[in-house]
């Protein structure tokens, strides 16, 4: 069984805390992604699981064993580095078989494993080449091959796609997912790219400032973020945040007041939840995909129309991004290309208020 568990793990460098106490349980065969901005502690956490950094305090468990004092070579893990870290003087075959040769595996067994991994990753013709003869994508595959061959309890990925160009990144993302489905090893994957996180993960761990903000499936993180940070981090383009005031509306409901000209009625289902905050200054969160051109919606959707003068219009082909200002803040919406007005022109938009979030500016928690 290859679960990974972190209990109250803390890492402090001299005076600076990098990881401030995280608890995490990763199930066997799960693909979990640690995501967050630079400096949030995700790489440090990964390296502590690997044993390349020592935890200042807390417990790290791999497969049921406490591994805090176990050196990396005895933890039965494999790691894929951002810079591939392939041994330049060895061929691809030798790179992949290095770990097995150190453990004195039989030659036949080594050959079997390497060729198997090479087949999975489609690098069989490259086995005799040296790393400097390979492209970035090929090197990344060799690095993965080196990990697969070891058949470890856990795979660790440290931002493996950051050095690849955009197109290759998309390709390799699919590769990684395919390999995981085939090999089914517990995987801990670190990235700063939330798209990678959303597409690859069974569960996503959003980290910020050395702490975990939220753990959940991509769906949960998208639809029910717990903090402002998670809400703004997940989804691209980012969620719009608008300062607003929650006021009592006529007829016993609540209304979100954005400016003198613009306000939205809170969906009836949520009035009970939000009532305690009536009268307060809050932040309204609404994703760009939930601000569209005025059009018919499905039944039951809570949509309210309004007019805004567009500042900037960005045609993306499939859709057009429109930017307008509300009370000094810039708001982004996604409209159908044929419906988009020009910059400086007013346009009739629809806000899918059913998907709104209210955030308490003091705690930065989503209400």
């Amino acid at each position, binding site marked *: 069984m290859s679960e990974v568990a972190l209990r109250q793990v803390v890492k402090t460098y001299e005076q600076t805390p990098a990881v401030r106490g995280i608890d995490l349980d990763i199930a066997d065969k799960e693909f979990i992604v640690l995501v967050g901005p630079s400096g949030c502690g995700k790489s440090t956490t990964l390296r502590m699981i690997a044993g390349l950094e020592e935890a200042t305090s807390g417990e790290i468990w791999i497969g049921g064993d406490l591994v805090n004092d176990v050196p990396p*070579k*005895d933890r039965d893990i494999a*790691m894929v*580095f951002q810079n591939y*870290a392939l041994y*330049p*003087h060895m061929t691809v075959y030798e790179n992949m078989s*290095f770990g097995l040769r150190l453990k004195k595996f039989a030659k036949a067994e080594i050959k079997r494993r390497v060729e198997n991994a090479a087949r999975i990753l489609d690098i069989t013709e490259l086995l005799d080449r040296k790393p400097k003869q390979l492209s970035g994508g090929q090197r990344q595959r060799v690095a993965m091959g080196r990990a697969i061959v*070891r058949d470890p309890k856990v795979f660790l990925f440290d931002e493996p796609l950051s050095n690849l160009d955009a197109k290759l990144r998309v390709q390799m993302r699919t590769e990684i997912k395919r390999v995981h489905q085939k090999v089914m090893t517990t995987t801990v994957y670190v990235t700063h790219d939330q798209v990678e996180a959303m597409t690859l993960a069974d569960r996503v761990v959003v980290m910020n400032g050395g702490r975990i903000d939220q753990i959940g499936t991509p769906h949960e993180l998208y639809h029910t973020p717990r903090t402002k940070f998670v809400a703004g981090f997940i989804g691209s383009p980012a969620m719009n945040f608008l300062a607003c005031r929650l006021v009592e509306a006529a007829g016993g409901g609540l209304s979100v007041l954005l400016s003198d000209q613009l306000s939205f009625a809170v969906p009836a289902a949520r009035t009970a939840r939000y009532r305690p905050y009536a009268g307060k200054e809050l932040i309204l969160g609404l994703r760009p995909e939930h601000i569209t051109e005025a059009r018919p919606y499905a039944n039951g959707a809570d949509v309210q129309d309004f007019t805004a003068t567009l500042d900037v219009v960005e045609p993306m082909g499939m859709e057009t991004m429109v930017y307008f200002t509300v009370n000094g803040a810039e708001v982004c919406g996604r409209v159908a290309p044929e419906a988009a007005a020009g910059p400086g022109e007013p346009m009739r938009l629809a806000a899918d208020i059913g998907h709104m979030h209210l955030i308490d500016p003091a705690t930065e928690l989503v209400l």
Partner: protein
Amino acid sequence: MADATPSSLAPTTPARPSQAHARRRRPALKRWMQRRSTIAFFMCLPLLMVIGGLVVYPALYAIDLATMNKAMTKHIGFGNFSFLFTRDTFWMVVRQSAIFAITAVVFKALIGLVTAHLVNNLPAKGQRKWRGMLLVPWVMPLSLSTLGWWWMYDPTYSALNWLLGAFGIGAVPWLSDPYWARFSVILDNVWYGAPFFLIMYLAALKSVPEQLYEAASIDGANAWQKFIHVTLPMMRNIIAITVLFSLIVTFANFDIVWIMTQGGPRDMTHIFATWAFKLGIQSGDIPLGASVALFMFPILGVAAIFILRGVAKRGREI
């Protein structure tokens, strides 16, 4: 001319052909002088003069000298060389030069490698201090530090013998016994040259990416295996270049032997450089001295070829 063409566009027809020719010739010379390759060549000229006049010419002149008789009145072909081949001292010098160079370089490389690793293990702040201390032998001019060693080896007052005596070991005839004399000379050379290896290897160690060691850790390598499979292969080129370089320099070394033993006792510490000096300058037989000195050439040449290959390989790798 009733043309409508504006005067600026009309081709200037020369009044006389010779004037046009003159107008075209001067710019050509100036152009040549401003051409990049010309300027570059002139900038290199002093270098070429130094190398040509003070290195290449003397080297060739040495070959010419080596074929002359002692009075330098006529050429005697390989006479000097065949004479040398018959002398026992010559073969002793060959053997001693080889022993000296190879032994010293091996120990210098080993000490350099070990100390480089030791220093690299320290926290970054301390490394600079230790590196500074350990490089001192290299910074002191060799002839002057050799004076210090000479004093330490003094037959009557040797401070080293005093130390040995404090441990109950008998005095060592550092410079009077031929075999101990060889040891003493090599010891001084190793003391002087090891820091150079330390510096080179330390720089090379630092150029190995840390992530390779991490990958090796995860692959299951212990410290020794990391050294064999990551450090040594990555340092292979630098080690080769430094060793070959040091072989050349050690092989041609003059200062130590000249100051400490003058080649003695009984010519058993003479190396090519000192014997050439003794024969050529002191005894006044320049051609013979030149012949001896020339024997260094083929060995240096072979080493130089290997160095060049190593440097070129390093440029191509990674």
